């Protein structure tokens, strides 16, 4: 199941992986905000390039490039739609400024996708779960998250087993027209759903038996402590935000068309 490979966190230890997820999250949100402030290519390009040292430090180049490829299709669509609509409204003319702004919007999309990709590639589910627990998000939410992640590989395996069991009874999933093929999946979906329901009941029993709900003030085996690296990233983030606001307000940004 290659889809789930992307979610399988690889145990790599790098300075980026060890950063507090909450700080990384603040960083990513700030990048988002800055990306939205600007609509010109130069600052957006700068933001994009800013991700690269993080990616290299975290040694997740290959996965990051793969997610870039994944975003490429949607990016192309955004570009095409923007150029297309300006084409129509400008009276069937392609004006360079229009192309440039379409490119900028596409780049903005790419920056948003890529910075969140870096976040997820460098944060293990446990770490993320812990961050959720420590950040005053209601515990039920954090618990639902970690439990879901914990059971993804289990459910994937079970789906495979169910498909095998039904194939062994002569079910041919790939046969027939579209409607038939959709109906073919009923013998796979129903056992999967029933099994998921049974599983949740068993989990609930286990939770209750281990004092779930005993107190509102739940404690934690682990705790997240901020280290030097976290403070450094926080400082960088604040720096970027201040610089961005300053530039936006006071520094005029030339367009590529202008420069040419």
């Amino acid at each position, binding site marked *: 199941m290659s889809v789930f490979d992307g979610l399988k966190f690889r145990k790599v230890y790098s300075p980026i992986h060890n950063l507090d997820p909450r700080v990384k999250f603040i960083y990513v949100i700030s990048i988002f905000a800055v990306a939205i402030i600007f609509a010109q290519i130069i600052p957006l390009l700068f933001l994009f390039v800013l991700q690269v040292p993080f990616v290299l430090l975290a040694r997740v180049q290959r996965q990051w490039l793969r997610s870039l490829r994944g975003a490429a299709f949607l990016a192309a669509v955004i570009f095409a739609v923007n150029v297309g609509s300006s084409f129509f409204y400008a009276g069937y003319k392609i004006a360079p400024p229009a192309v440039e702004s379409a490119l900028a919007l596409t780049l903005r999309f790419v920056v948003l996708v890529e910075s969140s990709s870096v976040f997820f590639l460098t944060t293990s589910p446990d770490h993320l779960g812990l961050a959720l627990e420590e950040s005053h998000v209601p515990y039920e939410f954090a618990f639902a998250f970690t439990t879901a992640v914990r059971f993804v590989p289990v459910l994937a395996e079970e789906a495979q*087993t169910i498909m095998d069991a039904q194939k*062994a*009874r*002569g079910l041919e999933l790939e046969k027939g027209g579209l409607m038939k093929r959709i109906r073919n999946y009923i013998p796979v979906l129903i056992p999967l759903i029933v099994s998921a329901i049974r599983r949740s009941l068993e989990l609930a029993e286990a939770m209750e038996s281990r004092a779930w709900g005993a107190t509102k003030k739940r404690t934690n085996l682990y705790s997240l402590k901020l280290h030097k690296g976290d403070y450094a990233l926080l400082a960088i983030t604040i720096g970027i935000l201040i610089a961005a606001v300053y530039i936006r307000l006071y520094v005029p940004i030339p367009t590529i068309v202008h420069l040419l």
Partner: protein
Amino acid sequence: MIEATDVRFSYASKIEALKGVTLTVKDGEFLAIMGQNGAGKSTFVKHFNGLLKPTSGKVIVDGVETTKTSVASLARNVGFVFQNPDHQLFSETVEEEIAFALKNFGFAADVIEKRVTWALELLSLAQYRKTSPFLLSGGERKRVALASVLAWNPQTLILDEPTIGQDHEQKEKLTQFILQMQAQGKTVVIVTHDVEFVAECNPRVVLMKEGKIVAEGMGKDILTNPQILAESSIVLPQIAQVFSKLSALGFPKNVIDIYEAEKIILNAVGSKQR
């Protein structure tokens, strides 16, 4: 007949689950494939109906190589009963559940009707014909799963861990059932780690460990050889355990049947009293 020749198999994660397995299962044989969890038993057995295809080596079922045909066509003659019946049950009634495979294989409606009735009778499920399978107990659901495989009358029956969660009586009925299938000339392959169950049935035993076959022979001999068992993390059946400690008295070691044990001991007592 099922012939596996030097079968190697690796999952997508590159873990080699089978490291060159060669085995022939003749028609009408009764075979137990045993070994620790993770030895590769289920992985191997899934090659018999084409669910898995070897990474190298060949599996030939009734003269057809499994890579050259579909799971559906292999399943026609090789019935596979999975460990957890809940992985199969999805229909509104037991009747429909049993008819599912028959419909997939293209049986005519009147034949389906007859086969369903026959399977229901065979497994004492007639009163549940119109019941939803989800409302039945665990043991009953297992019988429905079994019935749904028997319905299309495959020559070979593969049972994956059939004794898990079963109580004593259910296991006895299962033993009877297997012997009945055997008597009808069916090939029966069970994948199990339940030594007591195998000791009761005394089939041909194939012992697997870490993707390889490490021992092969009659249950009586394999299950009473402490070295072989220790290597593959299987325990001796109780009767054999008793006799392994009585070797000082000159008793044979390969005893797994309780009645044979009784005879041997009484003989020994008798001869001492003479």
